[in-house]
Structures are given as structure tokens and as C-alpha cells.
């Protein structure tokens, strides 16, 4: 390899790491290896080469590959970045600028610990699997690298990790939900999950019950007994019974929704602290989450048809950090528009107020229907031809759905561009909106298929840390204008050190 940079300070990871690598490979291979050996032993006509091959695969390959990996992996701490070169045949050189390193973590496995070695991971905003890792280094070398990185960004106050629940400072309250509102919001989170839970419980304990829910005879006898009674009730009784049944399902759904919401959102309060937002909520398990203001990448609002009529909306923050498995953080699950607008303003990302919404290309929605419709129609034709009337309902429902979604798609999707923000809006009766500051976007991609090129529309996909900001079926000119506007905003300020 010819490298234009001075290579003298390239070094390898610790040589004992080879042993650790080989041993951990061996550990992974040993159980399947034994299984295969036992499998072979129980057979008669095993070719003679099989066992030596297996032994080579099990005991010779791991050390050799571990050695090769170690030999070909070099790293260097330069004036600007950390470089790692790896790969035996296919080479890969990774460069991570110090400015982009958000944290350095040292971790030990049981094996590496025996030898006093650590794995060093340099986390950047790109996150997760693409992080740079060095395995294995001595503890001293790991500490040296960590200190080196910290020293490079010494002046950066934000480097101090903000642990959840660490902040004790009371901020100014921004939003809170009293019990009445929590209960009201519960009514809108109608949920029938209780039936699934009941079913699962009965399924688990059915050995204790005299009935079996999977037994068709049980239901048959139940219906025939009860059916006899229902028949004797007369027309009014039957209708009344049906209404009572439906009502009870609705009541159960509401009650379980209220219970769920009460458990989650009881005592909901959001405070503005020095660093960002602090949210506390929960009845039995009270969670306390701090969300630094600069990590908010975008804000999203949501509502329902009835909720909107009554003036209720919800607001969430989008960031790289996850909130209990969800990518976005609920900061106001049930609030008036003024309230969520206030929170969004507090976060520095005001919601769209008096903006000029623009629409997508009509051609895109027409083409979508034209492409999808024949498939659904063909399925419908087949079912009709085979005289299967009941299955025919599925494709016909599909046809209706496609026609409906395509014809309303044009009305549902809108976007707007403001000097500092970009807004996306989807939905007619219960619109969802997403607002992202232009400078927080990471990349822009315009994609056009053959039909899109012919008909002059394109899909514009922005890279957003922790979320999706996608505009389908924009007129090409519009897509370019949006992209160029966003790129211009990005040129002005460099905020990329922020997404963390």
C-alpha cells in the first residue's frame, strides 16, 4: 500500500489481542463443532478427510484469521483524526476527525479482562454499527486514546455526557397535564388490547379451566345454547342485545385506554431546564428524562379526527436518542395548539403558522393509481372468474383503497419552505406535520424512476438524524429548489457537531 501520509506512526493493536480474538472465535465454534463431531460419530460411512478438515476448521483457522486480522489492522492518531486501516485482501481505511467523536468508551469482555485488554469504541453521530472500534488495546493505551480525544475537544463544554435523571435543578415548567386531562386523553387512546391479553391469559391457564378456548365444540355449544335464548328474545331484544354488546366493547376499550394512559402519563410535566427539556411522567414507574435542546432535530405534531375537532394535538421531538424504544420523544401527548406551539418555539423550531403550503405533483398520484390498479383489478377478475365471491371482497377492497388513497393523496400531502425551516404535512382530517430546521439536515437525495422522469416528478429524501423526512412526487423543479435552498442554509452554518 502506498500512502501519501507518513506511515511511521501507524501502529498495530496489542499483540495479545490475537489470543483473545482466537479464543473468542474458538468459543463460538466449539459448541457447533461438538455437535458436528457427535453427528459424524453416529454415522458409519464418514469420509476419512472429514475429521481432519473439521479439526483444521475448528482449531487452526481461528488463530490464523485472528493473526491475519491483527497483522493487517493498523491505526494512527494524527493531528486531525484517528485512522484505522484494516482488511487482508479488501482494504478499508477509516478516518474519524476528532471533532466528530462524541464519546470514547472502553469495554472489556471476560476474556480480554484476563489479559488486561480493552476494546475502544469511538462514537460519532453516525451511530451504531459504523462506529470505529479498536480491539484489543492495553488499558493504558485505551486511556491514552480517550484522554487524547478529550483533550482535542477540551473547550467543548457539551462533551460532558448528560445522564438521564442526573439533573436536579428545577427548571421552569413549560407544560403539565392535570388528572382531568390525562383521563380525557385516555378516552382517545381507545384500545382493545385487553381482549388479546385476556385471550393470552386464558390460553396460559386453560388447564385450570373446565373449558378450552381452542375447542370448536365449546364455542358451538355456547352459541347453540345462547342462540336459542337469543331467538326467543324477539326483534327488539335482539337489536337491543347487539347494541349492548357493541357498547360494552366500546366501554371496555375506553376503560383500558384510560387505564393505560393513566399509568403512563399520570403527573405529566415538562420543564425547561438550563440544558434542555426535562420530562417526568408515570403512575407506578415514574420516568425522568432530560432531553438537551440542541439534540432536537425536528418536531412532529399529530392529532386525530375527533381530537382535532375538539382542538387537541400532540407534539414529539425527533432526535437520535430513543425514548423507550420509540425514536421520538413525546413532549406533549395531549395539548392545545397554543401550548404545543409554545413548546416548539421553546425548542427553537416554531411550528408552521402562516405558511404557504405547496402541493405535490398531480401526475404522481395519477400514475400510482394507474400502476397499482391493474394488479388489484386482475386479482378481482380472477376471483370473480373462479366464482369465489367471498375472497373477491379482498381485491375489491384493495381497488377501493388504491383509488381512494391515490385520489386523495394529492390533497393529503403538502410541504412548505421557510427561511430557516422546512415543513411536511400529511393527512386531511387529522394532519401530521413535521418541522425540521434546514441547517439540521444531513444530506439531500433526489430519486427518479423512469416514469417519474417521463412525467416530471421526483422523490426528495432528506437525511434527518433520528427521523425520516421524505417528499414523494414533487415536481422536479420544486424538488431542486427545495434541495438547493436547504444546501444553501447548510453552507452558512455548520451544525453537524450538534446531532448527538
Amino acid at each position: 500500500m502506498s500512502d501519501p501520509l507518513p506511515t511511521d506512526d501507524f501502529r498495530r493493536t496489542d499483540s495479545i489481542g490475537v489470543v483473545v480474538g482466537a479464543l473468542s472465535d474458538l468459543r463460538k465454534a466449539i459448541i457447533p463443532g461438538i455437535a458436528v463431531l457427535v453427528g459424524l460419530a453416529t454415522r458409519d460411512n464418514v469420509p476419512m478427510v472429514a475429521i481432519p478438515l473439521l479439526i483444521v476448521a475448528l482449531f487452526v483457522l481461528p488463530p490464523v484469521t485472528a493473526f491475519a486480522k491483527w497483522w493487517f489492522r493498523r491505526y494512527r492518531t494524527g493531528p486531525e483524526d484517528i485512522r484505522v486501516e484494516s482488511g487482508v485482501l479488501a482494504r478499508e481505511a477509516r478516518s474519524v476527525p476528532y471533532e466528530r467523536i462524541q464519546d470514547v468508551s472502553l469495554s472489556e469482555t471476560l476474556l480480554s479482562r484476563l489479559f488486561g485488554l480493552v476494546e475502544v469504541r469511538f462514537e460519532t453521530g453516525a451511530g451504531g454499527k459504523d462506529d470505529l472500534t479498536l480491539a484489543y488495546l492495553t488499558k493504558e493505551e485505551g486511556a491514552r486514546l480517550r484522554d487524547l480525544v478529550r483533550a482535542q475537544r477540551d473547550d467543548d463544554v457539551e462533551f460532558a455526557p448528560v445522564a438521564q435523571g442526573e439533573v436536579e435543578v428545577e427548571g421552569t415548567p413549560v407544560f403539565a397535564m392535570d388528572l382531568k386531562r390525562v383521563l380525557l386523553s385516555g378516552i382517545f387512546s381507545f384500545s382493545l388490547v385487553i381482549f388479546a391479553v385476556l385471550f393470552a391469559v386464558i390460553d396460559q391457564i386453560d388447564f385450570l379451566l373446565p373449558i378450552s378456548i381452542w375447542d370448536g365444540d365449546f364455542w358451538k355449544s355456547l352459541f347453540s345454547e345462547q342462540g336459542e335464548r337469543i331467538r326467543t328474545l324477539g326483534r327488539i331484544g335482539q337489536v337491543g342485545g347487539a347494541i349492548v354488546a357493541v357498547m360494552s366493547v366500546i366501554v371496555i376499550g375506553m376503560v383500558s385506554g384510560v387505564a393505560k394512559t393513566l399509568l403512563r402519563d399520570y403527573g405529566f410535566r415538562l420543564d425547561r431546564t438550563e440544558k434542555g427539556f426535562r420530562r417526568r411522567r408515570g403512575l407506578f414507574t415514574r420516568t425522568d428524562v432530560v432531553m438537551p435542546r440542541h439534540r432536537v432535530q425536528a418536531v412532529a405534531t399529530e392529532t386525530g379526527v375527533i381530537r382535532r375537532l375538539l382542538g387537541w394535538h400532540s407534539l414529539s421531538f425527533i432526535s437520535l436518542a430513543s425514548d423507550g424504544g420509540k425514536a421520538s420523544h413525546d413532549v406533549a401527548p395531549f395539548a392545545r395548539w397554543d401550548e404545543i406551539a409554545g413548546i416548539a418555539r421553546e425548542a427553537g423550531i416554531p411550528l408552521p403558522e402562516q405558511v404557504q403550503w405547496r402541493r405535490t405533483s398531480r401526475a404522481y398520484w395519477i400514475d400510482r393509481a394507474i400502476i397499482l390498479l391493474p394488479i388489484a383489478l386482475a386479482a378481482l377478475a380472477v376471483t370473480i372468474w373462479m366464482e369465489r365471491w367471498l375472497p373477491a371482497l379482498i381485491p375489491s377492497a384493495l381497488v377501493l383503497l388504491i383509488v381512494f388513497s391515490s385520489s386523495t393523496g394529492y390533497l393529503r400531502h403538502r410541504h412548505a419552505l421557510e427561511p430557516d425551516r422546512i415543513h411536511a404535512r400529511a393527512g386531511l382530517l387529522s394532519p401530521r406535520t413535521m418541522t425540521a430546521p434546514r441547517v439540521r439536515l444531513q444530506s439531500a437525495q433526489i430519486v427518479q424512476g423512469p416514469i417519474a422522469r417521463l412525467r416530471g416528478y421526483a422523490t426528495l429524501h432528506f437525511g434527518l438524524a433520528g427521523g425520516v423526512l421524505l417528499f414523494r412526487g414533487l415536481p422536479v423543479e420544486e424538488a431542486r429548489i427545495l434541495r438547493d435552498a436547504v444546501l444553501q442554509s447548510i453552507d452558512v452554518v455548520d451544525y453537524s457537531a450538534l446531532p448527538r
Partner: protein
Amino acid sequence: MNDTPEDLTPLDPRHVTVLRIEALLAMVPILIGAVIAELAANLPTGVVIVPALLLTALFTFPLPKRRYRRKGYSTAMDRLRFVKGWLQRSDTVVPFGRVQHIDVKQGLVERWFGLATLVVHTAGTHNASVSVPGLSRETAVEVREAIAARIRRDTM
């Protein structure tokens, strides 16, 4: 989107050869499968092999050239732009200031020809990494240095 090919730098011409070799290597299992299928099913010679060969020829000769012609990159205005695709055309722009870290990768075939793939990683969920293949190793390193310098400059 054929209005701006002039601002784009074409990839290294050796990229065509790399694409050809990679296509050929990818077709080898299919060719072997075709031969075995013919032998096993006792079909007249050429029924499966000839179409497989034609397909290989198509993937190896005209298509790489076409794919190469549709690709282009640009580093103007401190933005990395990469355009590709014939049927599905995509045009991706990553501002240098949004790059988190950078890889210069060399596959085996690329290495024979002194080519490299530049991969930039961003913080976005979409386009978390953008690859620009078919650069000469020198160009890839140059672009990497330019991006690194920009990141350095921004934070000073």
C-alpha cells in the same frame, strides 16, 4: 435530469473494467448452475447454457459501460455529490460539513486496478452512508483530505 452532466466529473475509466470483472464473477455460479442443470436434466445441449451465456455477455459488456456513463461525482462548493442510475436515477448531495467519518475502501478487484470507493457517513437516518465507487486511490484520498480539512476548519 440530464441537464447537469457537465458539472459532474466522470469516474475513473478503469471502473468499467472493475464492473465487468465483478459482473463476471457474480455470473460464475449461475453459469455453473446452468451447466449442472443441463447435465442433470438431460436437456439438449445449449438450452440453458446459451441463454445464461447471453445474459452473462449482456451483464459483462454493454451494461457496465452504460452504468459507468450514468455515474458522476462532484466536490464543488464543499459538497459531495454523486449521481447514478439509468432506470432509477438518484442524485445525492452530502455537504462536507455534515460528514461524520470517512472510509476509503478497496475491494479485491478495485485494488488490482488501483481504484477505491469513498464512503462518507452522515448522522442522518436516511443516507447514513453514501458510497462513491470507482475513484482512483489518489482521488479518493484527496477528497478525503478535503473533507477532513473542511471539518477541521469549521470547528476552529
